[in-house]
């Protein structure tokens, strides 16, 4: 095996492991903002735009991100392919640089996979032999531009460094900008449609990577052993420091929380939250949902940072990302119209106007539960043309107009029995009241009651807690009352001047003893470690008296 192949193999394995085991959430994030359709119309609408073929190809590949391992293989394949296509037999590390730069640049979650795919296609185009008919490049260059967009410059600078050919390209780009594609910003026409999720801005990384592709083909470094190791170290440094810098930020923590919520990886989410002190509405929503789904709410609710009602069900904040865990929480709570609303809004917030398979699936399901089968069919028709949502769509389609089948569907049966159907007013500020109303109408919906009671505790509204708590004992008895509820009830009694012996019997002796101990410790030293890291650090009493964040 020659040196280039060995480097390629090592690089591919590294890339695969990175995306498969370290950053699977990156794959999910990209996949959820598109929906590749196997249809001629879908291809046609892409081919009508400059660079549309690269977008279409990228979307085709990104659909495989739905599955972590196939997604990681695709990313590793594309990056390795770029390396292999860069023709530089004299210096392998220079040829590796563009792939490394794309790897680093990918840490910017707004970088679309279109860009590396366009680089790959551009380099592939350089392999077309046009030597026999030199003038054909005057046709090929506009064609490549139309197919892949901005990255045509890599082709031109590698294969057609000629003033007239460059002028041909520039002329054609202006023609496209002012004749065929007038409602797109100029920056999109010249720097690539869907190369970057945010319009009107193209990061310098894109240009840097493109330039590196061109330079890599010409760099000649003498073959000396020390130079080999130096280059090896340089490339590794760029990769490691670049990836740490680009990937290691709070945003990726949230992307990870969203990823775990999306795929129902509740235990993983809680483990991640235990290791990382996540403090935000977004993270709290995901963590509380994971606690509820693993029957650990309310026992562990004060182990984690809380954010008021927005940490249970967030208010919408105008982006396609902001409410993923909230939408999932609504789904499991049986707040069907809220599922629709949050998913509609996230769908409408996708800045490059793509449809999302993830959101379409939830919307279709919500319409089915609302018995709007005709509208659900419209969404299912799209999902049926995808690879990874097709089987779900076919199963869902089979349930249309058949309430018995819907009731038997394992995914929907629980939600149907939990949902409220007639006129419940959604209110984030009065979340507890809304959820109590839901529970009173659907006493099977224990999750709603736990959310309501936790909402009162998180908001330190003991009056409301005491008012609602009898619902818990009425429906679930007094035998196994979560300790957090006992703590809260005891504290309310204590504030009301009740003696311990007069408190309800469902408050265990252990909880009473704990409170006495807590009270003593608090009087002696409110700054004692027992409140921050010790026995009481996760208690309601500590949250109530110490935690200021909400």
């Amino acid at each position, binding site marked *: 095996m020659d040196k280039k192949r060995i480097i390629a193999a090592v690089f591919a394995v590294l890339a695969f492991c990175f995306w498969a085991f370290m950053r699977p959430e990156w794959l999910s994030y990209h996949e959820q903002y598109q929906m590749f359709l196997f249809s001629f119309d879908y291809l046609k609408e892409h081919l009508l735009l400059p660079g549309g073929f690269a977008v279409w190809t990228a979307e085709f590949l990104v659909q495989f991100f739905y599955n972590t391992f196939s997604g990681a293989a695709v990313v590793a394949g594309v990056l390795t392919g770029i390396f292999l296509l860069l023709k530089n037999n004299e210096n392998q590390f220079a040829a590796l640089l563009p792939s490394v730069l794309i790897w680093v640049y990918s840490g910017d979650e707004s970088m679309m996979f279109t860009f590396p795919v366009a680089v790959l296609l551009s380099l592939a185009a350089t392999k077309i032999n046009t030597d026999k008919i030199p003038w054909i490049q005057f046709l090929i260059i506009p064609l490549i531009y139309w197919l892949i967009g901005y990255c045509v410059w890599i082709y031109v600078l590698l294969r057609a460094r000629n003033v007239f050919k460059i002028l041909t390209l520039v002329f054609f780009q202006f023609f496209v900008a002012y004749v065929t594609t007038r409602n797109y910003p100029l920056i999109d026409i010249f720097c690539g449609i869907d190369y970057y999720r945010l319009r009107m801005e193209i990061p310098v990384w894109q240009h840097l990577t493109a330039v590196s592709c061109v330079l890599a083909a010409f760099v000649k470094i003498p073959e000396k052993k020390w130079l080999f190791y130096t280059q090896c170290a340089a490339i590794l440094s760029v990769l490691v420091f670049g990836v740490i810098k680009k990937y290691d930020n709070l945003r990726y923590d949230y992307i990870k929380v969203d990823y775990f919520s999306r795929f129902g990886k509740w235990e993983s989410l809680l483990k991640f939250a235990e290791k990382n002190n996540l403090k935000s509405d977004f993270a709290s929503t995901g963590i509380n949902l994971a606690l509820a789904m693993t029957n650990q709410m309310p026992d562990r609710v004060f182990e984690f940072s809380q954010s008021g009602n927005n940490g249970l069900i967030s208010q919408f904040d105008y982006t396609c990302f902001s409410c993923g865990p909230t939408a999932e929480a609504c789904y499991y709570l049986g707040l069907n119209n809220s599922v629709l609303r949050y998913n509609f809004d996230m769908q409408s917030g996708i*800045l490059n106007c793509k449809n999302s398979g993830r959101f379409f699936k939830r919307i279709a399901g919500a319409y089915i539960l609302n018995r709007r089968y005709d509208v659900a069919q419209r969404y299912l028709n799209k999902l049926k043309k995808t690879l990874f949502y097709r089987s779900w769509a076919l199963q869902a389609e089979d349930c249309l107009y058949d309430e018995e089948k819907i009731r038997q569907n394992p995914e929907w049966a629980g939600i149907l029995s939990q949902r409220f159907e007639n006129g419940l007013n959604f209110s984030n500020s009065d979340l507890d009241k809304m959820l109590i109303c839901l529970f009173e109408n659907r006493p099977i919906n224990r999750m709603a009651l736990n959310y309501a009671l936790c909402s009162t505790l998180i908001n330190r509204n003991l009056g409301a807690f005491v008012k609602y708590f009898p619902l818990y004992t009425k429906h679930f008895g007094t035998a196994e009352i979560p300790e957090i509820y006992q703590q809260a009830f005891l504290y309310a009694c204590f504030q009301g001047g009740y003696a311990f012996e007069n408190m309800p019997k469902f408050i265990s002796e252990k909880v009473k003893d704990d409170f006495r101990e807590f009270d003593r410790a608090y009087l002696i030293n409110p700054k004692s470690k027992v409140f921050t890291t010790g026995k009481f650090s996760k208690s309601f009493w500590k949250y109530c008296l110490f935690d200021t964040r909400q």
Partner: protein
Amino acid sequence: MKKFLYLFLFCFLTFSCTESPENVQIVDALPEIFPDYEGVTVPAGIAPLNFNVKNSEKVYVEITGDDGSKLLSSGSYAGFDIEEWHDLTFKNTGGKITVSVTVKNNGVWKKYRDFFIYVSKDSLNDYGLTYRLIPPGYETFAHIGIFQRDIHTFDEEAVIDGMAIQGECMNCHVPNRCNPNQFQVHIRGKNSATLIQQGGKRKLLQTATDSTIANCMYAYWHPTGKYIAYSLNLIHQTFFEDTVKYIEVFDMASDALVMDVEKNELILCESLMTKDFESYPVFSADGKTIYYCTSKPYVLDGDLNAMRYSLVKTSFDAEKGKIGPDFDTLVNAEEIKKSITHPRPSYDGRFLMFCVADYSVFPIHHKESDLYVMNLADSTIHPLKEVNSDCAETFHNFSTNSRWFVFNSRRIDKINNLLFISHIDENGNCTKPFLLPQKNPAEFYGNLFFSYNVPDFTSEKVDLDIRAFAREIYSGERIQVGVRRN
């Protein structure tokens, strides 16, 4: 050999493309077609009324004008050539077209009862429609766009869309009496601005002031183009967990005023800025009257029926830019226990059309919302029975000659608002409306994930330099409007 080849090709093209019905069974029923074009009245020159037939493998449609001219269509749906259709409709202006539908299903051809499409004597010479296409979101609108559609063909293009100005919500395009050279659009959000374009000149205004409660919102032009009537609304929305009703949109407060477009000044009139809620002001056809809707203040947690708007008018002196002083209630909401919104005067001065719902300031989410028309000559009011359905009818606007109007209706799927056009004669009588024609209606509407919103006619194509507009939006440069007292 060549001749043989040509003959073969001729035969192939002729016999393979058009399968004529054989052994036809006669069915004494109307065909189930989508859209329902049976008995509709259309203007000559409208885009072909292509339609699909439910449960059909193949359709064979023959249409015959009163003058004897014929058109044939055969295939998976009934589709007609644009020029031939136009020719047929012009030749039968004031008459009718007979539609004869034969359907093949399970290998059997069935011929249904013929139906008629009436061609009005009144023309519809406007270029087309403008409207907002809006996805079913509530807070984010990255995919929103204002589009224009040639109603004589199937061509649609963007006036402004999310591709040009990313992630910005835009309110509706409001022209002055269908004039494409005089319109306003409001952009909401962090780059908010009110765009006013007159005769190719464009200006972006900041309409929020210390003296007013919000940006200018619902707009209506004075016929001279010198003024725009606006309402300023603090809009709020609340959501329901309900299988039928999802949302209620209401105002926390609202006022009405008039903007002097030449001086960039808001004319504040105390009577239009009371503690009551004033909304949807519009100028009469002669520009001497302002009609608007007003309600006592309400809170959503209280009695929803309090959200009822009366129809009121006041005078306007365009010379002096003066509102009032006389105010007259035309329809008292408390008396009829209904809410009046979206008044729209016809440009010939004959009618005032408006929405009537049980309660609401935003009737698009009220299935009981219907269109009514007031004859301004004698102030009589009647519902448009031919037009209304058991779903919401809202956001109507007249054509330049006031003989046609377009409106939103949810009657097709109860979720998305689609556009219907109807004819109204000089006595206020309407005809059965027709759904905006599409090349393959079932396919088009079956794959539509957007609602049509606030449609209006445009006499010519709207010409807006989208890129220049986008640059101006993002530049942040705005003309701050001033205020003056009435």
